[in-house]
Every structure is written in structure tokens, then in C-alpha cells.
């Protein structure tokens, strides 16, 4: 893997690091207020879609 782990984007729902290329290939991407977010899987994508502001709130701690 050429990408260093620290520079990978994080899933805002569960906090997992996500490979953006893989996420894009599987449609696990979402746009919200001009920013792009990547997700580990469908579940987190859907969760985010249901209530994006909850997960973007600075006080929200990504967890499983």
C-alpha cells in the first residue's frame, strides 16, 4: 500500500481509516455541504445519510 495510514481519511461514523480509492469504487462516498466523506461500508454510509450533522458535530466521538 503506497498510502501511509496516517494520511488516510476516516469514516466519520465509526472512525475506521478508509482507502478512498476503494471507497469510491464501491460508491461508499457522500458529499455534505461541499465536503466529501468516505465510509468503511454501507452501514456507516447509511447512518451518515440519515443524520449527517450528528456525526459531524465536533463533540461526536466516532466509535463502533
Amino acid at each position, binding site marked *: 500500500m503506497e498510502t501511509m495510514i496516517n494520511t488516510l481519511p476516516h469514516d466519520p461514523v465509526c472512525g475506521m481509516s478508509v482507502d478512498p480509492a476503494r471507497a469510491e469504487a464501491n460508491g461508499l462516498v457522500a458529499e455534505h455541504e461541499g465536503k466529501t466523506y468516505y465510509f468503511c*461500508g454501507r*452501514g456507516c454510509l447509511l447512518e451518515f445519510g440519515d443524520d449527517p450533522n450528528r456525526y459531524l458535530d465536533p463533540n461526536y466521538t466516532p466509535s463502533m
Partner: protein
Amino acid sequence: MSTATEPITELVLPVEGMTCASCVNRIERFLGRADGVAEASVNLASEQATVRFDPSRIDRSGIVETIKAAGYDVRPQPAMATRGRSVEADLDATEMARAAERRALLRDGLLATGIGLVMMVVTLWPGGIGLTMEQLNLVLLVPATIVLLGPGRRFWIRALRGLPHGDLTMDTLVALGTGAAYGYSLAITMFPAAVTAAGIPLDTFYETGAIITGFVLIGRWLEARAKGQAASAVRALLRLRPAMVRVVRDGAEAMVPAAEVMVGDVARVRPGERVPVDGAVVEGSSAVDESMLTGESAPVAKAIGDRVTGGTLNASGMLQVRTERVGDDTTLAQIARLVEHAQGSKAPIQQLVDRVVEWFVPAVALVAALSFVTWMALGPEPRLPLALTSAIGVLIIACPCAMGLATPTALMVSTGRGAASGILVRDAAALERAARVDVVIFDKTGTLTRGRPEVTEVVVVDGDVPALLNAAAGAERSSEHPLAAAVIRRAGRAGLDPERAMVTDFAAVPGGGVRATVDGADVRVGSARYLTAEGVAMDATSEALAAVAAAEGRGDTVVWVAVDGRVRGALALSDGLRPEAAAAVTQLRRLGLEPWMVTGDREPVARVVGAAAGIAPAQTMAEVSPADKAAAVTAIQARGARVAMVGDGINDAPALAQSDLGVAVGTGADVAIEASDLTVLGDDLRAVPTGIGLARATMRIIRQNLVWAFGYNVLLIPVAAGILYPFTGWTLNPALAAGAMALSSVSVVTNSLRLRRYRPPKEG
């Protein structure tokens, strides 16, 4: 112990597309919100969702839809061509896999042990075999490596797999022990010159490693074998259903595979054959041996309309049975599922053991390291081999595998033994609760009594018996009350045909009585209070009143019969106590339990029935409404007692749920098995003391197993570490340690097998 009116069904679905625990939460949340779902548990590792639901409010497709709504797919099941065999097929597949694994264990164990013994003989051959130490070591290297990479492979694989997770198990200990032996020996073999220069002898431990591997594997084989025996009870149950069924279709008889029998088919069962399906008798009569279900060997008479269960033995006559349930829906399949579920369940005590094992393994590794260091620092020459021997010995002797076996093996044998007597326990937690019960409350109607009242006396005030019965039976014809059925049966016995009368204007008052116009006459049947409220003058002869008073004193229920506004007579009905009730109560007392009775019936009736059963008046609660029964349970629990409630599982749901142990008796083999804590198939009340006694015996065996397994390890660890050396010169040969450890596992399993012979306390 469920409060649902329908049996809770459990379904396991493979779910695709989960990536992290958020997915798990999401699916569980969606399922939990679905109407009809009692519980949903999703496992990321196995990619399965286990859902418990009420089939009357949601079905499989509804659950699949819910999962889809959450954003996931359910992997489509391959079409089950033989749906009728799926429970058996599952068990058979599991059994074949287990048998294959057992064979592999034995083969590898014997191979490793054999090689080890040969190596040992070669090493110790008197006079030597003409090779130098260096050469001998090189020769021994070959078989030792074979054992390490062959039979010994599984320890390494498992130990390494667990390492990233921090999982230290028995495999870790064995891998460490044999690895150390092999590594040390390899070093000596490869660098003999350096080793001799350091003052270390050239003796290697190759044969030790091989023998340890062999013994541990043989020990595991013995464990697996015993587990297989314990689990066989369930498989034996399922094999009782015939594979081919004689079905009558369109007037012609055909032999059809069991999987192809459909609901509605009529099956013909000859004497001596096993009943193939669950259904109702439509022709013929016979006696059926239901012992495989209820444990009672006395054959049960079956006539037209009676239900029979697949797997029971038809004794004497020819029966034709209309199929009501096939395959996985049959009582037998449900029992098998329940027993399997119970056998696999986690007992609270087992969770405690697991926690102990968690710190035990690292603690042992520490002790081994400590003993190694101590010997190296203080030991007599040759230090290194001695230190190594003791460290390896500690690692091996401390293996906690016997502890891990203590509960599951006892549980397996126990559930199998219970099932053989028609006692089904829901899971291990229920078993533990059953063992700790102090008080047993019996519901009266339908549990202590048969739930089938009969007319015991006909009291005439005006007119004659046939007229009285005709009027009463006619009025009761449209009533579904059990008393009505009793009255109609009594009329039948008097030669009357209740169907012949002209009956109109039927009305029933719950708790009061019934009225109807029978052959033009106005008939009321009910309690004295009801008749008075209807304007009937309760004029009766003194003899009649005396007879009624006597009947009530006996505990009978009395209904009065009035025709055209005048009292004509009364009927006394009694709900017989089950013949074995008193014996069951005595057995409970002998176990040190306190029997109670609760009923919605009136005080006089309750007193009589209680006395006949052997329950003290102080422990009889009468006139308790269904809602208050749960409160009654709570009241006794408040005194610190652990309460078991015995009922029919249908009408006393809240009380059963409130109790520490809910016992359902007499639900009959034709009712789907509800998930009470303890279900008694058949209706012999003595199964209650037997079940509680078995639970206690099981807990006793589990405690014995744990003490033995743990104590044994703990005692021998210091010996392996060499604590006796300064006094007696004893150390523990690691090979012996392996043998001893295998022996402890075997003795735990053997001890558990003792439960097979459990006998309930004798009466009298």
C-alpha cells in the same frame, strides 16, 4: 417464561455487507424496532443475524425486508429440496465433521506418541547403538521435525492466530513448551562444539516434545469422544422417525419418503411401527408408547381425535393418522433444537471460569519464566537442561483445558438425560436457577388437577334425573366452558342425546352460568348467586341442601339447574387431582423444597385439593385472580426465597415470568414447545422434582469438575517448577506432565458422564 401468546421462533440469517460494528448496531436497531421482534443479535464475525420473533406478528420475509431497509442483504438460502430433513441434516453434517476431526486427533496422537517412544528407546538403548551424541542428535532431528510439522502443527497455528488479539490459550502453552524443547534441542544439534565448550551436555529433548504432543492430542481425542457420546441423545431422538411412510392418497396406499409427506396426508401405522408424523387419529385405536417423549413407559390409549407424536411407538392396533406437522415443525425436531440450544448455551458459572482462565495462562507463563530464571541462577549443574525441564513442565501441567471442559460436558450429559425423561431445560442459566430453587408453587387447575371436571353427583329437587340432565345438557350445549363438557358427558352416560333437544336463545354469563330455551322450556344453569340474580327462588328440599353442602365440603363445584323459574336440582362437579400429585409433593419435600399452591378457585375447594396433594393450608392461596398470581410470586420472593412456578404455560404467563424458574407442565406433546425455563413433556408432576434434582446433581458435578481440574493444576505447578527438588530431588518429567494433564481432562469428562445414571429421589 414468555409473556407472548404465540411461541417465540428463532431464525438465523446470513447477512451480507457488514463491515464494522456500526453496521451491527444499525441492523440490531432496525430489527429491534420492528413489530413482533423480541430480540435481535447480530454477529459481525459470523455474518449472521439471530432474530427471536413472534410469528403471528412478523414472518421471515418481514425480517428480511427490515434488514434490507437497514441497507443490507440477506444471502439467499439454497432451496432446501428436503425441507423435512433440515434439522437432521444439520446434525448429521456436524456429526460427520466431528467424527472426521476425532479420527484426525487419534491418528496424529498415536503417530506422535509412537515416534516419541521410538526416539526414547533409541536414546536409552543399553550400551548405545554405536553413534556419537552428535550423530544421534542429527538422526533424532528428523522424526522430531516430522512431529512438529505434522501432528504438532495445530498448536502452533492456533497459538499464532491468537497472538495478535492477545489471546493466550492452552494451545499457546503447548506450543511454547514443545517449541522450547525443540528449539533447545535444535541449537544443541547444530552447534555441538559451542555447546560442549559452554559446559552443557549434549542431551536433547526431542522425544519429550514428541511425547508431549502425542499425549495432548490423545487427551483431546478422548474428550471429543466423550462429547460425542454425550451429544448422541439428541441424534438418537431424531432417528426415531421412520424414513419411509405409508401414506394413503386417493384411496391407494404408497410408501413415501418422510420428506415428501405433506400436511393433510393420512398415514397408516401398523402395530410395532413408529408413528411417522405429528397428527390426529382419524381411524383405528391403539395404545402408544410415548416413553421417548415423556419418559413414561406406560402406553397411552389413542382413539379417534386423539393426537399422536412422530417418533412414538405404536403398540397394539392399526392407526390412521392425519398429518398435522412434518419435518422441522414436529415436536421431535423442536425438542432436538431446544436441547441443542441448551447444550450450546453459556452457563453463568462458565463465564466465571473463562475469566479465571484469562489471567491463568499469562500467570503460568510467568511462573515458568520465573522457575527457569531461578534454576539458572541457583541450580546445580547442568543448569540449562534442568531449568528448561522445569519451565516446560510448568507450561504443560498448567494447561487449563480441563477447566474449560468442566461445565460444557456436564451440561451436555445433563440435557440429554433430562430429554430422555421428557424434561427440557431452556438453557444453562435456567439449569443453574433450577438448582437453587427453595419454593415451588403449583397452579391448581390443569396442573395439580387434570383440568377436566367430571360430574360426581346429580341432586334432584323436583322431577327426575333424565329430565334434569336433559335440560342442563341442552343449555350447556353451546357453552365452551369445561364444566359444560362435563355435564354433556354425564348426560351421554345416562343414555341421553343432548343434540336431540331443540335449543334456542343461548346466553352465557361469565362466572355465573348459562341460560337457554330447551324444548320450549326456559332453563338456567349456574351458581346459586346467578340463579337468584335471575329471579329464581332457591327453593330446595332439605335433603338436597344437605347433599349440596356435603359436595361443597368435599371441594366440589356445585351448579344449580332451574327450569321455567323453579329449581329442579343441582349437579356436583369435581376436577380430579392428578394421581401422582401427592407423590410429587412428597418428593419435593424430600429435596428440601417448600410446596405451595395457588388458585383462582374458592377457599373450600382449594383447601380440599391442597390437603389431598399434601400441601399445608398455610401454603395454599385461594381466590387469586390471574393478575394477582404474579404478585403472589413476588410476595414470596420478597422473603428471600427463590421461587419456581409450575403451570400450564398458557394461562399463568405473568406468574411464570415473575418466578425465578418457570415450569410448564401438561402442555401436551401436541402443543409447540414454548420456551419456558423448564418444560415437562407429558403430564407427570413427578418430573418437577426429578428436573430440580437433576439440575442440582448437574451443578454438583460441575463444581466437582472445577475443583478437580483447577486444584490438580495448581497443586502440581510447584512440583513441576521444582519446589520439591531441594528436599527430595523430584522434578516433573514434562512428558509425564502431558500425560497427567490429559488424564485430568479425561477424568472431568468421565465424571460428567456419571450424570447419565441420575435417578430421581425414591418415594415412600
